[in-house]
């Protein structure tokens, strides 16, 4: 098994520039040819010139800075020996990714090397996808997730109700106000159901039942 880490950068980058930014913080250099020799998938491949450098990292793993492609850079992470477990390798990938993110974040705000995205994928030794994938979650991404409709719906319905009651001047008429509140809740429920029905049309909704 091995991990491939794909980093999206802010702008177009070049290999020499990336090397100058990240090589020093990740010391423990090993020859690229040695790293290729340790890899299950690259063992039979001669290191191409696009592979910049390689180094040992935590948990008995190594990293090859594989290549730079316009606005992205790719890193190969694998265990030094087949006995390195997948769990250990994923921890190493997480730690390396964290270090890489902090190195890139230290560049100037307008630097093309600054991080836009980071994805870790786990592959089998024969190059096939395992389906295991990790993504860097920034504060902004988490904020967007928390701002999603499912999260704010419970606050949005009372807000719309209050706005309508103020607009209609019904604050002093509890009976009418409650009817309006109920109507708004029903409208939202109907809209939600229609949307869910449209999205789930032709799909089976599975439910786990205890017998």
């Amino acid at each position: 098994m091995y991990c491939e880490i794909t980093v999206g950068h802010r702008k177009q980058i070049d290999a020499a520039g990336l090397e100058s930014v990240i090589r020093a913080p990740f010391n423990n250099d090993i020859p690229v040819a040695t790293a290729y020799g340790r890899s299950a998938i690259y063992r039979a491949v001669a290191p191409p010139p696009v592979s910049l450098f390689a180094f040992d990292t935590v948990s008995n793993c190594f990293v090859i800075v594989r290549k730079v492609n316009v606005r992205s850079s790719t890193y190969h992470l694998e265990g030094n020996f087949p006995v390195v477990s997948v769990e250990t390798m994923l921890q190493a990938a997480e730690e390396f990714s964290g270090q890489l993110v902090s190195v890139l974040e230290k560049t100037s705000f307008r630097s093309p090397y600054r991080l836009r995205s980071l994805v870790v994928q786990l592959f089998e030794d024969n190059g096939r996808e395992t389906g295991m994938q990790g993504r860097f979650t920034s504060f902004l991404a988490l904020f967007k997730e928390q701002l999603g409709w499912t999260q704010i719906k419970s606050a949005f319905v009372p807000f719309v109700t209050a706005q309508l009651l103020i607009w209609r001047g019904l604050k002093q008429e509890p009976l009418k106000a409650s009817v309006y509140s109920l109507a708004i809740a029903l409208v939202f429920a109907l809209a939600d159901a229609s949307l869910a029905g449209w999205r789930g049309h032709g799909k089976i909704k599975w439910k786990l039942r205890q017998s």
Partner: protein
Amino acid sequence: MFRAQNPGVSIGVKAKGPAGLHERIRLDLARNFRANLASEESDDPGADLTFREGNRLAVVEVKTGDPGLPLPSSTLAQMDLLTAHVRAKLAPAGVGEIMPVLVTNYFVSDADRDELEQAGIKLVHVESPASYDPKTFSQKFAQIVGLPENLIKL
């Protein structure tokens, strides 16, 4: 996919490509080119599919994942391993020309395209999983790989 609720890197299990695209492509190709099908091995470390046309053997690898991501950089090495594996496996039976074929929905840059071409790998790109149409795709596949189109039914 599992996500930690703190900024950082979280790793979780995600389905292989959108809604079983890998399996859909594999089954559609196997069905549409049944007459040329040499083997269909999903669990074997070998190719996803192999098709025989005369003395030529098309070794097909279907590689699906997040279409927003670039083609994994190990793809070329993977295709080399695959070709070597098939060649070794079929050597006793005698095999003529082996043509590696990569079917993928990953984003393929011009540099990747050139690299694949230089390595003699035919590329069949799946533009969008949402607009995937078995018939159109099979026709495109037949044209690129050089298989007969007259049997395509789907």
